[in-house]
């Protein structure tokens, strides 16, 4: 799993977040970062590790728990929650910002660029990804979905082959069949 972002007030809600995680999973958490807590929370809510739609449901439930706990503790600062999960075959990725646009109003000097922007998530898809005419790009059949590349920002100079994942959206690349199927799910 990868996490792009920073969960404001994580220490204040960590204990209550981990109450949603089974003890056997909790014991495996070695560090104390926000990313590890989020990963454990989603894994704890995951009912079927083989099924990408179950992972989407676990992510959606984790977002609801995070929103409720933040509201309970009065945490309302913009926090990016862009997540990337893969089991080696499928990919499930989330683009989501909690309390988007809400920054601390005590001092303008403390307003960070990350409080004002929605962190991005992009993907490109095709038959294969490689160096063509001196530029890394997808090549082969444009309708194919054999190769899928996800990144926080496009990795090539020419971005015309890249597609931006909308805000509050989960992208699912289901790789269990010979040719991966891609779809998106809107979250509240």
């Amino acid at each position, binding site marked *: 799993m990868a996490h792009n972002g920073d969960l404001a007030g994580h220490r204040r809600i960590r204990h209550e977040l981990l109450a949603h995680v089974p003890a056997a999973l909790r014991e495996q958490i070695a560090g104390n970062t926000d990313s590890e807590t989020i990963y454990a929370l989603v894994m704890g809510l995951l009912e079927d590790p083989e099924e990408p739609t179950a992972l989407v449901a676990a992510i959606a439930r984790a977002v609801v728990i995070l929103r409720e706990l933040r509201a309970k503790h009065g945490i309302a600062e913009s926090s990016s929650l862009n997540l990337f999960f893969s089991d080696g075959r499928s990919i499930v990725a989330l683009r989501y910002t909690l309390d*988007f*646009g809400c920054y601390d109003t005590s001092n303008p000097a403390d*307003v960070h660029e990350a409080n*004002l922007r929605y962190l991005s998530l992009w993907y490109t898809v095709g038959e294969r990804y490689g160096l063509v005419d001196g530029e890394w790009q997808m*090549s082969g059949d444009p309708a194919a979905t054999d190769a899928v590349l996800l990144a926080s920002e496009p990795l090539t100079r020419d971005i015309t082959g890249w*597609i*931006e*994942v909308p805000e509050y959206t989960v992208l699912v690349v289901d790789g269990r069949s010979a040719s991966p199927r891609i779809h998106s799910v809107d979250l509240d």
Partner: protein
Amino acid sequence: VPLVHPFFVDLPGDHHRVLERVVRRQRVAAGDPLFEQGDPADSALFVERGSVELRVRLPGGGSSPLAVIEAGDVLGELALIDRHRRSASARAATDLELLVMHRDDLRALCAHYHPASLSLLRRLAELVARRIDQVNDDRAPGERAPGAASIPATLRDGADFDVRRFLPALSLFRRFTAADIDALVALGRIVSASAGDAVVRYGEPAAGCFIVARGALQAFVPTSEGPRRVGVLGPGALFGEVSLLLDRSRSATCIVRERATLLELSAASLEQLRDPSQHVSFRFHEALVRNLMSRLTLATRALTGERRLG
């Protein structure tokens, strides 16, 4: 030779004399290339006669036709404000007569606060607003079912923090001086709205536009299958201006997602911002065009993504 392209029609005579110094005429023979996809873009092309074929490269090699640009239309206008790369390749489908305007020349006009540059920025804003309108129609085609009109528009005067101190942090105000920001705030009204409030509603007449100072809103188009989210608006976003520029009713409903503080600019304030004797008019129109271009890019990308995912 007068500029007969519709973009320049009905501009005051003294504007034309200035513009004829910054707009170059170019003739291109049928079949000749104008630019290649991926080339750095630093100019807009106004097609006075003939037509241009646009093609995009295909990942597996070769290319696919994208569009044909006819006389009276504009090509590559995004390059007039910020650095871009051409997103398609262009070739003269017939013999062409073009007017070419370079970004540096428009910038120089703006830097000298020449009234002609304000007129050009306004026309650019209207051009890009029409394009956004078209892309949004393509994104949510079909019947409109404006059920969200029942959500009351509830704006409260003022905010619970000193908004003015935070405006310089927003990207929209990047090129504004403190005096420009003060002048804009004096023309507008600070308002607040709670989560769930509708700030603008589909189908209503446009009375003003808004700049998000804090918080976030979501823009929805009411379709027969329910509201369809077409955008998310955070700090520094300007919205509600497309319907004002096109003089038509609201094309989307904007609902507050996170408690929002906004700077409202009425239609009358926008009229005052057409006055070339004040610097803020130029800064505002540059920001307006930049914001519209960014929105058009996002909407076009979204359309591409939605088509790819079916």
